[in-house]
């Protein structure tokens, strides 16, 4: 029997949703202040003032109207998270839509969902003339979303610990760095802000060395870092990383993309001085192995067509795109059209595989995740051993992820369910693309990029693409970022509301 959600459940969801919307509204004061004081862009700053006020009003009204003493249980937390990402998308789209650089409010929503989910697919018009204020918000979205919208709420606005824990888990995170989830959330912020300061400094200095003026170098530095470390792939100029024409800049970005795709728990271990974890961890090992395989496939494809004759060019164009796809960042040093015109099917397939598998769990990266890839591999090995040994033999397979763990059937089942979910998403988007007349490989490429929260594009993502495809990719980005479970919980909630007793 399906139980209908009670009024208290709905109030609970409304309360926490209101707090999160309130938090998003508060964050809009950052571009408002920088727009007014630093960039001297009055109209863009006003766009953020208006949007912030609307968000705060809605947030306060919701949490006031839905005030309850009940703690948030797991199911409600997942529904809250799923709804809060949709609310964040719509609210954050307001200032971008007011900028006049988006064809429609749907396009602005696409942009903000892409930003918050650290995807990086973009529908902005005339990016080269977008204000610094709006551009900063475009890059702040990945920084906030990469850490997690729930993390914002947990860190500063949410009382109690069981509700906080359930919000944290609902966002596809199941690892706590320290025993208290609020401290875990604050630690994730601490790591991110330290890296932000260091990353902006490094990119700013490198930017100046390649000919950017200081103000421009540091503005680009902060934007590129936020979108790079948070594996989003937005850039302040329309031609992405190709704009900088610099090997040094690309190498620095590769470094930030790779560390951005690492598990936050791994960052915590490194901070504690446990460098051995880098090599022992199943995720980093799987990441290295997958990068090697994908590089072989992609390079074979490029070599076969004789696209890039020089080793250095192969590195800057081939390897950069591989790392960008694998870490699910989406930065590009080639034009989207060049994927189709120059790369050929084999190289493109290599990139699709890298995007589909993605980065590490509990990071800003998307895709199926290396932890799942590693567990599936270990489970496969265990089953092969079981088949080869006598039926009475006990086969134990272990792996190391922060601590040594044993493969359990329950765990493998959970991993396979989420993996199947991702594959379903990739296929869904491909079918919609095919139905709209796009060729198979292109439809698969773009769908995998959206659902894997990557952001590489072969040219389909464009303001002129059909609205149904924009909606499909929004759903894919949203579901991919939340690792599907919260999205399923939301649908389950509605079904229970309609059919429950």
């Amino acid at each position, binding site marked *: 029997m399906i139980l209908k959600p009670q009024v208290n459940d709905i109030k609970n969801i409304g309360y926490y949703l209101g707090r999160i919307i309130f938090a998003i509204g508060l964050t809009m004061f950052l571009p408002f202040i920088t727009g007014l004081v630093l960039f001297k862009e*009055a109209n863009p700053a*006003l766009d953020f003032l208006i949007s912030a*006020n609307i968000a705060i009003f809605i947030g306060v009204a919701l949490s*006031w109207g839905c005030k309850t003493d009940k703690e948030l249980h797991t199911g409600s937390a997942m529904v809250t998270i799923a709804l809060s990402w949709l609310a964040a998308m719509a609210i954050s789209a307001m200032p971008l839509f007011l900028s006049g650089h988006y064809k429609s409010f749907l396009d602005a929503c696409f942009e903000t969902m892409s930003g918050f989910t650290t995807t990086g697919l973009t529908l902005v018009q005339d990016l*080269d003339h977008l204000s*610094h204020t709006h551009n900063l918000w475009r890059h702040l979205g990945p920084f906030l979303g990469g850490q997690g919208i729930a993390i914002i709420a947990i860190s500063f606005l949410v009382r109690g610990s069981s509700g906080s824990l359930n919000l944290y888990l609902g966002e596809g995170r199941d690892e706590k760095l320290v025993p208290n989830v609020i401290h875990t959330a604050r630690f994730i912020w601490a790591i991110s802000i330290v890296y932000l300061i260091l990353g902006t400094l490094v990119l700013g200095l490198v930017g100046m060395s390649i000919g*950017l003026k200081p103000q421009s170098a540091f503005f680009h530095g902060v934007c590129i870092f936020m979108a790079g470390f948070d594996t989003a792939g937005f850039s302040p100029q329309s031609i992405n990383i190709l704009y900088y024409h610099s090997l040094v800049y690309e190498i620095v970005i590769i470094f930030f993309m790779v560390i951005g795709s690492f598990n936050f728990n791994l960052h915590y271990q490194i901070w504690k001085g446990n460098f051995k974890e880098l090599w022992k961890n199943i995720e980093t090992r799987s990441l290295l192995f997958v990068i090697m395989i994908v590089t072989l496939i992609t390079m074979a494809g490029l070599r076969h067509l004789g696209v*890039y004759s020089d080793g250095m060019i192969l590195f800057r164009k081939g390897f950069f795109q591989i790392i960008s796809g694998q870490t699910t960042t989406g930065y590009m040093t080639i034009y989207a059209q060049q994927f189709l015109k*120059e790369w050929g099917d084999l190289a493109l397939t290599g990139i699709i595989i890298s995007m589909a598998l993605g980065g590490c769990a509990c990071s800003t990266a998307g895709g199926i995740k290396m932890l799942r890839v590693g567990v599936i591999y270990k489970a496969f090995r265990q089953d092969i051993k079981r088949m080869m040994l006598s039926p009475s033999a006990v086969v134990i397979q272990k792996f190391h992820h922060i601590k040594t763990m044993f493969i359990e059937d329950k765990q493998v089942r959970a991993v396979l369910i989420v993996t199947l979910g991702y594959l379903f998403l990739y296929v869904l988007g491909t079918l919609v693309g095919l139905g709209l007349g796009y060729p198979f490989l292109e439809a698969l490429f773009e769908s995998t990029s959206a659902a894997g929260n990557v952001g590489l594009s072969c040219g389909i993502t464009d303001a002129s693409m059909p609205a149904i495809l924009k909606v499909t990719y929004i759903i894919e980005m949203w579901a991919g970022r939340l690792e599907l479970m919260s999205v399923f919980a939301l649908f389950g909630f509605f079904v229970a509301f309609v059919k429950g007793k």
Partner: protein
Amino acid sequence: MILCLVLFVASFNCCAQTAASLELLNNAKQYDSKAISYKGEVIGDIMIRGDHAWLHVNDGTIAIGIWAPKAMIEDICYVGNYQIKGDIVEVFGTFHRICLEHGGDLDIHASEIRKVTSGSLVIQPISRKKVYFGAYSLLLVLLFYALNKSFQNK
């Protein structure tokens, strides 16, 4: 001799095919290493690298990187951004689909840059509607927040 050089450059530029950015991208192999002319607005930053510079010219669709000797960019006064409409220039040069000199970048090595139209500052008057809406909405939010707090305290 100087006359011959000028005539040579002029004839080189006269033979250059005019192409838009999308045409260059979609037919890159056909235009590779060919003389072309490309027109658009200078945007972003001009990055000086030794005795050359990178600039980017956007024809309204896509921006393409232009590698030019420093001397050629001295006339460029405005580079486009939010507050500035950049100079419109016509670039004559060689198109590279995968530039061996620049790490495989798709670029144009300029032999001549002609300024077609000068750019200008874009006057952005502050929108009164936005000011009023912003101010009133802020007052409303503060009022609402104060009301909420006073109800909570009761």
